[in-house]
């Protein structure tokens, strides 16, 4: 048993070099062996824009992806803390439940789509539809976000430290958006609202989590006007 203990300590860290092994092998390890392996930290080398890196993780572990990720990095994550030392493609942390994903670079479309929980941090810019249909996730973007961000967002918070594109928060439900920069336009049913003390506290906490040095009082609050919640026969229907 002693030798096993020694073995365990030396295998706390693990490396997957995707130039030599496949994404399939990485994911299989994460799903089937991780929980009993004692591994606490994984380095993923040479990701080279591969899709579906570290998807469906269901156990606490720190994963460092050393390079660019393709679509769906950290998709459906639970418990894991994933850092991408590069840019990512579509749907980073899509449908995340818990844990965190941090992107050191830029994120393509639909970052954090439908996420239920956890924290997604994008240090650079995020493209179109960031936070689309989010359902409780917290997203903090260091740079700008593209058009239609937080489209139909249901719950959770989206913090944008830069500018926002067209139609921000279109058809919002109960998610709340905080924007530090300029908003090109608000989407249907999204409205700017005054910041309360609770909003300032929320933004301060999220900025701290993300490690961004901004002042919460610089942010504006955008939330749903809730005018699309019910059919209204007398209104001009947009749908």
């Amino acid at each position, binding site marked *: 048993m002693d030798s096993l203990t020694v073995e365990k300590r030396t295998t706390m860290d693990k490396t997957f070099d995707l130039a030599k092994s496949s994404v399939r092998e990485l994911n299989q390890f994460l799903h089937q062996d991780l929980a009993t392996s004692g591994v606490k930290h994984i380095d993923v080398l040479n990701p080279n824009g591969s899709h579906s890196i570290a*998807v469906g993780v269901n156990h606490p572990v720190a994963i460092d992806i050393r390079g660019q990720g393709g679509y769906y990095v950290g998709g459906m994550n639970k418990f894991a803390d994933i850092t991408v030392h590069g840019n990512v493609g579509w749907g980073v942390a899509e449908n995340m439940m818990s844990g965190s994903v941090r992107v050191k670079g830029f994120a393509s479309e639909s970052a954090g789509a439908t996420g239920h929980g956890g924290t997604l941090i994008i240090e650079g810019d995020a493209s179109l539809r960031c936070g689309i249909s989010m359902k409780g996730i917290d997203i903090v973007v260091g740079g700008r976000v593209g058009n239609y961000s937080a489209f139909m967002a249901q719950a959770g918070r989206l913090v944008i430290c830069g500018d926002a594109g067209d139609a921000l928060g279109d058809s919002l439900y109960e998610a709340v958006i905080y924007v530090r920069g300029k908003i090109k336009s608000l989407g249907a049913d999204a409205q700017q609202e005054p910041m309360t003390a609770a909003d300032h506290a929320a933004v301060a906490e999220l900025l701290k989590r993300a490690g961004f040095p901004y002042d919460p009082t610089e942010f504006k609050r955008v939330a749903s006007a809730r005018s699309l919640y019910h059919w209204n026969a007398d209104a001009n229907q947009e749908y």
Partner: protein
Amino acid sequence: MNKPVEHPAQAPKRIQREESAGFDRTVIDYIHNAAAHGLYEIRGLGAKRKLPHFDDLVFLAGSVSRYPLEGYREKCHTKTVLGTRYAKKPVELDIPITFAGMSFGSLSARVKEALGRAATELGTSTTTGDGGMTQEERQSSKTLVYQCLPSRYGFNPDDVRRADAIEVVIGQGAKPGGGGMLLGQKVNPRVAKMRTLPEGIDQRSACRHPDWTGPDDLVIKINELREITDWQVPIYVKIGATRVYNDVKLAVHAGADVVVVDGMQGGTAATQSVFIEHVGIPTLAALRQAVEALEELDMRGKVQLVISGGIRTGADVAKALALGADAVSVGQGTLIALGCNHEAYFQNGANHSAEEDYAKLGTAPGYCHHCHTGRCPVGITTQDAILEQRLDPAVGAKRLKNYFKTMNMELTTVARACGKSNVHHLEREDLVALTIEAAAMARVPLAGTSWIPGVTGT
């Protein structure tokens, strides 16, 4: 005593009571309503208009040139396997008739439980719908297909991992190109919580997936779902029938194990009636196009095809299989088996009239399509605590089992008459059409001729 004969000049002029074909009473009613409310009609179920359908086909059974099998004694297999292309664990079913995807939200949790129980006893599958997976249906269903829809309501990795197949829903026959809809009356606390929405709001789902667009992305999305499920379970792709030939080919290229095609007769719990009646193509035409796409790719039997949209009887199932489907899905038929549009509901061991409740909705048994109101008089498409008690899951399961058993017996009866010891051996050769439209759509000859319009023969 003879009635005095009216002079023609004094008789009312019939022309003054002549109904217009173009502006008939339905259209007049439609325009009056539109003018009064400025809002389109929303309703449940599927297309009500008459369409070319399986009814327009008949079987050529065995005789001299081919011989039939003994109806009661000789075996006729119905086993159906879906998802043999990539999945390590394909879905194995005892019969080729499955329960279509219908959401918890549109249906009560008790109905979902009844569906699961019946499916398990029948050895077939049931499918979740746009509202997440309930404990009731997971526990009661041996084989449960978990839908991945644009809304992703309640979609989570734990349920992905306990599903027996994943179905990426791109569209449905009742509203291809449209998203789901659930009016506020049905968004009760439990439904709201599962969908992460405020209670009582009119919920309209997105029509496109949030994290992929187009066939090249779908390849990557399917791959992600396979990675999450370690390539264990089949991935289905469901499309609403429009450009079926191209869509099926793209779904196959994207890596689908199973393609589900839902024709325009397919039902819904709520959508705009303009969608239901005017968007999409009939199941008959859709099925043939889907089969053609698979044949051209040499994928018949490698990627399985499930057809749905107006499947009602064993004859429909047999015709669908003969045209090339591997299985069918039944939605509205199952609701009707549970008592939808029945005059009465069965509760505490006795029948109770529901006619008054139909009248409150402005309708009557036989005509009701008011699933969207949540006031289902027989307790099926409701989230109301009192109404939902009108459907006992055990009684419902029994009725569903009887219905599917009946269809399966009809299916094997026809298959044996056609000389097949396996229902999957039914073939297009066994069918002829009664109408030119059906002959053209299904590409089987008009009965008594060798004429397939647009193809061959005289």
